[in-house]
């Protein structure tokens, strides 16, 4: 190679390198800077808190996205009308100070005064009307708001929400981050992209490098008082092991879902605390009851009796999950302790023989390609082999899996998860078990279930509702189309001195009050 040629190649390389590097200047270099505060008069707080969730923040569109991390962020940037108290249970006021049912179909909400949006404008009844009416047309909020007919403004700080059908769960639905209150003024004056960034919450969007990090800055005029932490950074660290190491080195303060086999590192570290919270997700085996031989309830019951839940919790979750026997999540106010199906191999074999399959049969179980899902399918395969059912495991990548087991499709069994109890008992059961329900991929249709669900959602007396939902839970569990396995844990590693943490609302984290005091 001649000297000139080599020089030219070197020069090109150098130019390319320089231009690339100049584009990668450090953007928030003082992150997790714990340095001592200059003003010693009061308790000081760590300036920045870095959170690394398992999945990345993907969208600012509050009414469109279903991403859990994005929805967790919405609860920091916005407020809902009503908030769920995840510590004590029940509902607490947020942008609405009080609410009551003033007639059969009308809710009256008294709104909070003196609340400012991030652009400095005042929050009023107009914004509530705008948000709900817009939300009725948008992908993710639509299903939550569909029982609302219209919103009437009584005065600047009072609205009437008029229902098109009885829905006592509407208050729970309004606590969902897809229903956070948007600024009417922003949507009228700014582009949609910019308008989605204007909220009333304690933090404002600062900088978003998609796939890298999202930085939020505190909102000085926040109505509950200025937050203690100046900046919250949501860091995308997709690999669980790397996420844990970043927590151990102190580069991040909160690590969501570290690898399950490595949880002891957090427990043993004096600087860290391991938090294990029963999650929203109930892992279950779904059975397509419209298909032979699963249309025979005895076959389904045989399968239900041959599931050893303790075995699942040991083998799949290393003990970090609780066995579960009911179609309803224990976190729901209307949950009832029921017996469900016990592990009983003899009974299972007898039921199979009675149904005409003394030697078992072959079928396929589908799972997504997630680690847990695949493991559940494999353990299921082993457990079913004991009663002569030969299961073939098919692990599909998520989008393919969802299409394969969608309602009305022709699959045998699947490994799935359901966490829809957060927005009330009706949502939890109706989606799954009502004839033609949005998530009813069991081909399940039962007149009694449909009738009772319709009845229960139109009654506001809690005790009567509890009785009805209790009966439903028992009845549906016995139908054995949804075979609950376990309630999964949300594992989190946090710095030991972290304060202000409250349990998540289902899978949605509530980080708006977190802070770390420093001496």
């Amino acid at each position, binding site marked *: 190679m001649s000297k000139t040629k080599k020089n030219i190649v070197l020069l090109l390389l150098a130019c390319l390198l320089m231009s690339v590097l100049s584009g990668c200047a450090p953007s928030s270099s003082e992150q997790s800077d714990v340095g001592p505060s200059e003003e010693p008069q009061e308790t000081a707080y760590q300036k920045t808190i870095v959170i690394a969730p398992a999945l990345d923040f993907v969208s600012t569109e509050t009414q469109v996205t279903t991403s859990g991390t994005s929805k967790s962020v919405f609860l920091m940037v916005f407020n809902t009308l009503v908030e769920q108290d995840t510590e004590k249970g029940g509902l607490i006021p947020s942008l609405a100070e009080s609410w009551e049912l003033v007639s059969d179909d009308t809710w009256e909400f008294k709104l909070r005064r003196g609340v400012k949006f991030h652009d400095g404008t005042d929050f009023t009844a107009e914004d509530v009307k705008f948000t709900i009416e817009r939300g009725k047309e948008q992908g993710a909020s639509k299903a939550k708001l569909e029982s609302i007919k219209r919103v009437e403004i009584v005065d600047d700080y009072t609205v009437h929400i008029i229902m098109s059908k009885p829905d006592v769960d509407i208050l729970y639905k309004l606590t969902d981050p897809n229903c956070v209150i948007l600024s009417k003024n922003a949507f009228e004056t700014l582009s949609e992209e910019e308008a989605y960034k204007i909220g009333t919450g304690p933090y404002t969007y600062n900088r978003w490098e998609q*796939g890298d990090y999202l930085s939020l800055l505190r909102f000085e005029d926040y109505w509950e008082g200025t937050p203690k932490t100046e900046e919250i950074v949501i860091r995308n660290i997709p690999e669980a092991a790397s996420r844990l190491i970043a927590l151990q080195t102190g580069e991040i303060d909160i690590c969501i879902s570290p690898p399950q086999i490595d949880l002891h590192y957090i427990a043993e570290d004096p600087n860290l605390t391991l938090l294990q919270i029963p999650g929203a997700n109930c892992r279950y085996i779904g059975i397509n009851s419209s298909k032979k031989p699963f249309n025979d309830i005895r076959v389904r019951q045989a399968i239900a009796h041959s599931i050893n839940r303790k075995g699942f919790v040991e083998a799949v979750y290393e003990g970090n999950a609780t066995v579960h026997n009911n179609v309803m999540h224990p976190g729901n106010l209307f949950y009832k302790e029921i017996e469900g199906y016990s592990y009983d191999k003899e009974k299972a074999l007898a039921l199979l023989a009675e149904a005409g399959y003394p030697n078992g049969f072959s079928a396929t179980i589908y799972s997504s390609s997630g680690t847990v899902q695949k493991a559940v399918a494999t353990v299921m395969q082993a457990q079913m082999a004991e009663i002569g059912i030969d299961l073939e495991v098919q692990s599909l990548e998520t989008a393919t899996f969802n299409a394969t087991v969608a309602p009305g499709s022709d699959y045998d069994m699947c490994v799935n998860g359901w966490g829809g109890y957060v927005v009330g008992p009706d949502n939890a059961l109706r989606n799954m078990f009502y004839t033609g329900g949005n998530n009813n991929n069991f081909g399940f249709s039962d007149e009694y279930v449909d009738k009772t669900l319709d009845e229960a959602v139109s009654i506001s007396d809690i005790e009567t509702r509890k009785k009805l939902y209790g009966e439903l839970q028992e009845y549906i569990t016995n139908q054995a189309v949804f075979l609950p396995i376990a309630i999964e844990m949300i594992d989190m590693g946090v710095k030991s001195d972290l304060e202000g943490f409250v349990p998540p609302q289902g899978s949605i984290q509530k980080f708006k009050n977190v802070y770390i005091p420093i001496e």
Partner: protein
Amino acid sequence: MIRYYKSIMIILNRERDLMIRYTIRRLLMLIPILIAVSLVVYFIVDLAPGDVVDVIAPDDASPEDKELLREMMGLNDPFIIRYARYMQGLMRGDLGKSYVNNRDVFEVYFSRLPNTLLLALAGAFVAVLIAVPLGVVSAMHRGSWKDAISMIFGLLGLSMPNFWLGLLLIIFFSLKLGLFPSYGSEGWSSIVLPAITVGTAQAALVMRTTRSSMLEVVRQDYLRTARAKGVPERTVIYKHALRNALIPIVTVMGTQLGVALGGAVFTETVFAWPGVGRLVVDAINSRDIPMVTGCLILTTMLASFLILLVDIAYAFIDPRIKARYTK
């Protein structure tokens, strides 16, 4: 297009413009390549079962809502109509918006590209740093224990899974020694570990190329002459032999760089390095067709331009290659 091409050809019909003619011909060849790439990618992602609505629709969305969403996004139209609509946008330089979050594909791609380029170049740098000396040593001591050790190292680098090496490096250098950050792309120190991870894998191939290329060159007469003239052995190897052995090495490095433009998915995942690789993989998983197609079109363009630049540079430098163009 053809008339346009011909008229340009007439204007350029002079000896010294032959290079420009060649460049234009190469640029025009990009058009069919890009059309083919977009068609194949669009078609393959479309063939995969499930669509973006299965990914972005909420758990409680009804089948009617999902259908409505598909209708709104135009997903129910036949493939050819959707592709034609996409190409129409592409002609205007509009790569479309992500199905998942409505962000501009072009903008998102270029926000990630610098990271990918940086990692590719730094990885190549590490690869050369490791591979060239090792390759020279193993060629000079063929069959000896030095050769065997280099070979074992090369095999290890090639067969060690990237993500595993990456994790080991993080545990040792970040967690135990606290020398480098364990993740991210901020500041100079954060590039070190990912670059070593990428470089080690590339080093194996470069090392083997260096070794065989050196073995070829050392048999040449002019080296024997140099030795006979009493030139010191170091000078013989590093000045006379290595220089002439460099051409295949540079070619291999060029190919590796081209591959690296597509992103290093595993390394990016372990180090939370926000590059193009993960962007594309995430987009494929969520069936975000505009994002996948847009990213791959841009990567193809970039790679083609780079190859063209290198070819032109060669032609300017090497009279033999230049002579070939003028025929």
